[in-house]
Structures are given as C-alpha cells and as structure tokens.
C-alpha cells in the first residue's frame, strides 16, 4: 500500500492477522478510508457512507472500516463506534445511536423527505442542469426536514407535560391527608382540592421570640 510519499494518508493502516485453526483463519484488515486512496483505485465520485454503529455520516478521510473474512464491510465514523462494535454491543440497545432512537420513537420515523437520499447503484450520466437543480433541492429538502423534526420533538414534549400534570394530580388526590386531616376537608365541604399550606418563614420565628419576651 505505502509507496513513497503517497502512503502518508494511510499511515494509520495496519494489517492484523489472527491465526488459529487453518480452515477458520480469521483475517482482519483494518485500514483508514483515505479520500485519495478511494479516488486512486476506483476513479469514481466518493460516497458519504453511514456509520454501522451510530448511523452518522462518514466523510472521506474519516473513520475506519473493517472487512470481515466473508467480505462484509463495517464502517465506523470514529473510534468510539469501532470500540463499541468490538465489544459486540448491539446498536439497538445503546441509547445514543440512531437505531435506538428510531426504534423507541424518539426520532421521526416516517417522512417523505427520507425517500430522497438513497444509495444509487447505477451510473448517472452527468447533466449540468440536473446537478444544479439537485444542489438547489438539497438545501430546500434539508430545511423541510429540520422543521419537521423540530415539530416532532415539540409534539413529544407536549405529551410529557400532560403526563406529568396527570401524575402530580393523582399524587395530590391520594396523599392529601398527609398534609390535612380528612375531617377538616369534609367540614369545608371539599373533597380533594389543593390547599395552600403555610410554610414557616423566618419572620414567624421572630414573632415567636417577641411573644416570649
């Protein structure tokens, strides 16, 4: 891989061979996904890949990728994700990943804006007009998506507020007797109504002292 000065961008690359029983040798090859490296070999436009673990975008020159001996590729955006993979953690059970957030209704799941970005496995003939309009559309779609996401989050919070209010009301209804005796409530002709409770303030202490004197 490294010939002359060109190996600079691949300096983090290392080959790791894990030997063992002959037939089941697991060959693991880690290398940095260098932008130049991709260009040199394939002569195609670079792709913005998604991290296997956290689903964030991996820009050229970032992250690390692991090719398993059945030729399956695992890409990671940073060492955090790589380490978590090596620990055999399940991204669906780790709270900070997109997979978890999706699965538990934290993020927007169904939206028309999700249909635009896809992996297109076919060559597209370059068309200046198309490229221009696409670049325009990207900005617009991004804006639409962010506003929708913000709305989704707002909706989620709204539900929580109502829930908290409900819970607080229930607690008040059930344990009002801790503060006020039930008989007193009946005298007033009220069953379960919030009562203003006087809190001892420093002023009253002063009054007591005055009284004693």
């Amino acid at each position, binding site marked *: 891989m490294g010939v002359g000065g060109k190996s600079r961008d691949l300096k983090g690359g290392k080959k790791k061979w*894990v030997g*063992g*029983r*002959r*037939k*089941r040798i*697991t060959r*693991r090859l880690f290398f940095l996904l260098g932008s130049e490296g991709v260009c040199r070999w394939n002569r195609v436009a670079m792709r913005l890949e*998604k*991290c*296997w*673990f*956290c*689903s*964030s*975008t991996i820009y050229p020159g970032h992250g690390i990728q692991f090719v*398993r001996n*059945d030729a*399956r*590729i*695992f*890409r990671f955006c940073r060492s955090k994700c790589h380490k978590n993979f090596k620990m*055999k953690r*399940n*991204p*669906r059970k780790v709270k900070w*990943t*997109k*997979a978890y*957030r*999706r699965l538990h209704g934290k993020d927007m799941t169904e*939206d028309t*804006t*999700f*249909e*635009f*970005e*896809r*992996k*297109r*496995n*076919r060559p597209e003939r370059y068309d200046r007009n198309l490229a221009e309009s696409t670049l325009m559309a990207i900005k617009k779609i991004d804006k639409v*998506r962010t506003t929708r996401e913000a709305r989704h989050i707002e909706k989620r919070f709204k539900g929580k507020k109502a829930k908290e209010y409900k819970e607080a009301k229930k607690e008040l209804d059930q344990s009002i007797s801790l503060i006020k005796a039930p008989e007193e409530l009946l005298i007033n002709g009220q069953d379960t109504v919030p009562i203003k409770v006087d809190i001892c303030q420093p002023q009253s202490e002063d009054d007591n002292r005055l009284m004693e004197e």
Partner: protein
Amino acid sequence: MGGKCPHRKVKKRRLSHKTARRTKFLLKGDDAVYDELKKPEENREALPVDEDLPGMGQYYCLHCDRYFSNVSVRDEHFKTKRHKKRVKLMMGPAPHTQLDAELAAGMGMPDNGPKLMSM
C-alpha cells in the same frame, strides 16, 4: 476463562488470557449465524471431516458456532444457560446490519435501477 501457563513463576501472572481471547475472534458474527439458521434444513451442507477440529468436526452447535468432541458433550452443551441465551437471541429479530444503519440515518432503500436482464 484463562488457561494455565506452565513457565510463569509469579503467582499473579500464572494464567494466560490469550486462549480465551483467541476463541472470541474465531467465532462467527451474529448476523452470519442468523443467516445460517435461516436456511432450510435440507440446504445445509453435511459437516466435513476435519482432523484439526474436536471430534473430527462432526459435533457442531450452529447457534454458538462451536465444535464438540462427542455427542454427550454436545448434548450437555445444549442444556447450558449460555446456549439457551444464544438460542433466544437467534429466535428474535434479525441482527443489526448496514442497511438498518442507513435506514435509521434517514435514507431510503437502495436504488439499483431497472433490471437490465429480463428473466
């Protein structure tokens, strides 16, 4: 899990954890095992005879990707907690894949274009 190292004198460092780690790397990934289990029973290849493996590679646990020396040991393994946990895991939803990661990131299904060969 660590095995014994005969030449180590220091009491603390008598056990080596290398062997334990080695088997960890040799194990198949969850998704590979899941795919293997998904295949119908008839399509599975017969276990090849391999003298390097325990029991000539004839006593194999698909779920845990392990070879055993004979039938009784394998059946004993089927009763263990570790195996049962593994079976439960494999009965559940399919393991996480790159496609899942991409869908979670807000991408659509991959677009391969129209089929070029008419079947």
